[in-house]
């Protein structure tokens, strides 16, 4: 029925054509320092992916419940952007939120405990998979209402500006979330008031079981910034080298100009929407997933690092093994951790009082 939109374009290097950063990988020789960082990035990709496998295992084994959404396939986005942001730049995100806090310094154990509803969890077991937080590490959640956190994202930037701090707020949200009206209220105010916030659309081209082309009139979601006078572009999110370049450039722009930015990062989730998504064939073919996996961020990065001699084949296996072992241990330790005490149910509703008790 749609007339103007282009079909949801498939992931390919073409996607990054629009990037205003110079294309990566192919051109120029990386420095040793750059390569070292990229090796670290690769290690993180393995760790996140292994972590997510363990979180799915927790769900299957009844140690986690509710909605559980893994980040598998999208690792390069968070790694690149969180890698380039400054330590005290605040981050806010939706419910597919396991990777961000870990990348920001929260231990996988605490995250896994939260997913398992344990007292050692980031939220003492009260938040769960969708509601991770770390005040200390500047991670502002972890929110379950699609699109609901985006205005808060602008609010983080409002506080930064109010205080005259040199920080940039990063607000991650999905392609589906881009259809929530509040996003445009937030964009208007962010632009009107010159708030230093990056609206970062993780466009994995599907919202639960509804494909991009069925939910967005124009699948180029970054264009929605036009009417609010905000700089915007679509960039690739699978090649972490490119992601880092774009992130560095855009964060720099926002910091210098004290203006918001809308960036649409093209990515793909290899897993189902949530742990309870039993029939992916309802919205995509196996071929489509296979095709997307040709640009698996792990694959792209390891090929690059191999090519530049920064690692050898055996290192890959080694990294994978280490990540597996680490996360299996995290799983074991978390699954043995204590559950919250019954009296805790009334705590943390208010800072200074309890609600009326009892049924």
């Amino acid at each position: 029925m749609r007339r103007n939109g282009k079909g949801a374009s498939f992931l390919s290097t073409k996607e990054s054509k629009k990037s205003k950063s110079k294309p990566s990988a192919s051109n120029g020789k990386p420095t040793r320092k750059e390569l070292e960082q990229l090796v670290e990035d690769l290690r993180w990709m393995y760790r996140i992916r292994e972590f997510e496998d363990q979180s799915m295992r927790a769900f299957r084994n009844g140690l986690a419940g509710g909605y559980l959404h893994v980040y598998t396939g999208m690792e390069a986005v968070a790694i690149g952007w969180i890698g380039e942001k400054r330590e005290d730049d605040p981050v806010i995100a939706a419910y597919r939120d396991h990777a961000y806090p870990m990348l920001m310094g929260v231990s996988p154990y605490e995250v896994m405990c939260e997913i398992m509803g344990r007292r050692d969890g980031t939220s003492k077991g009260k938040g769960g998979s969708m509601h991770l937080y770390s005040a200390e590490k500047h991670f502002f959640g972890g929110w379950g209402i699609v699109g609901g956190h985006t205005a808060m994202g602008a609010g983080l930037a409002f506080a930064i500006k109010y205080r005259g701090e040199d920080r940039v707020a990063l607000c991650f949200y999905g392609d589906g979330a881009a259809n929530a009206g509040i996003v445009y209220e937030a964009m208007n105010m962010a632009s009107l008031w010159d708030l230093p916030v990056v609206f970062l659309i993780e466009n994995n081209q599907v919202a639960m079981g509804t494909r991009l082309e069925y939910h967005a009139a124009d699948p180029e979601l970054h264009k929605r910034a036009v009417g609010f006078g905000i700089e915007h572009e679509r960039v690739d999110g699978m090649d972490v080298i490119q992601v880092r370049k774009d992130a560095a450039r855009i964060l720099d722009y926002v910091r210098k100009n004290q203006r918001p930015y809308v960036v649409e990062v093209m990515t793909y989730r290899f897993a189902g929407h949530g742990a309870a998504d039993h029939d992916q064939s309802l919205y995509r073919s196996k071929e489509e997933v296979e095709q997307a996996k040709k640009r698996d961020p792990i694959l792209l990065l390891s090929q690059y690092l191999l090519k530049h001699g920064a690692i050898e084949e055996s290192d890959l296996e080694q990294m994978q093994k280490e990540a597996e072992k680490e996360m299996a241990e995290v799983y074991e330790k978390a699954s043995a951790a204590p559950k919250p005490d019954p009296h805790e149910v009334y705590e943390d509703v208010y800072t200074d009082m309890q609600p009326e008790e009892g049924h």
Partner: protein
Amino acid sequence: MAELAYREALRRALIEEMDRDENVFLMGEDIGRYQGTFRVTAGLFEKYGARRVVDTPISEPGIVGISTGAALMGLRPVVEMMTMSFSILALDQIINHAAKVRYMSGGQFSVPLVIRGPGGAANQLSAQHSHSMEGWYAHVPGLKVVAPSTPSDAYGMLKTAIRDDNPVIFTENPGLYGIKGEVDDDEFLVPFGKAVVRREGTDLSLVAYSRMVHVCLEAAERLDKEDGVSVEVVDVRSLVPMDTDTIFASVRKTHRAVVVYEDWKSGGFGAEICTRIQESCFDDLDAPVGRVGGLNVPMPYARNLELQCIPNADDVVEKSRQTLQGVI
């Protein structure tokens, strides 16, 4: 008589009403190609096509607004909220627009709109996804609000809702979709505004709706076995209009009542039911009207804490015993 699961009963009602009336259409997130989160609409996209089974973007206010506009033109939209918690985003459209246009237009327009979906907690959905909304809706003039507890009522009341010319909030519950029950093979409607006594008794009236009816039935069984008291269970079914006659008749017989609801205890619609009982049956009461509600906290994720929050048969038995003091 076929045995149907609650979700299948809902689905049967949708199919029959869509077949009966071309103006009936469905709208919601992931209800079509994805078959619906709780599979109430399974197969309907294939059966009726994209025109009558409309997959929407994630835009609850917009969805309700568009549906209301379509209803003003005479269509009969049935909107699925993936969970009733998300209807909070659309509250302004529901209570300030759909529910009021008839009055504000002096009766010129009506809004034959059904908003349906699961309210209440499921299994560790945490704080943002576990709302019981029926009490808020029941507070708003212009809305009808129902909360069936059995497959048969789910079927018969959804059909009634779709044929109603007013906006109807149709609350289901995640814990009910799988329960099975007899549903007459012949078409039938269940009228709004009629409560039903699910279990007869003489010593105490338990008053509830939706899933809590089953919790009350379990508690009644236990009170019978363990304490030898005879407990009546009234299924309110329809909050607006509400059949207070049946509730009051039960209380006048048993002289004691406990109102049970899953929503946060303080300020839940159960408080309205308690208030009406004591207003009208004061002289018949041998004990204060008791109530059991959800704990007054955002729903915690950890399963043990969550289970603490949702009223269960133990909680109902305990409050019933308090209310029965002197009898047992």
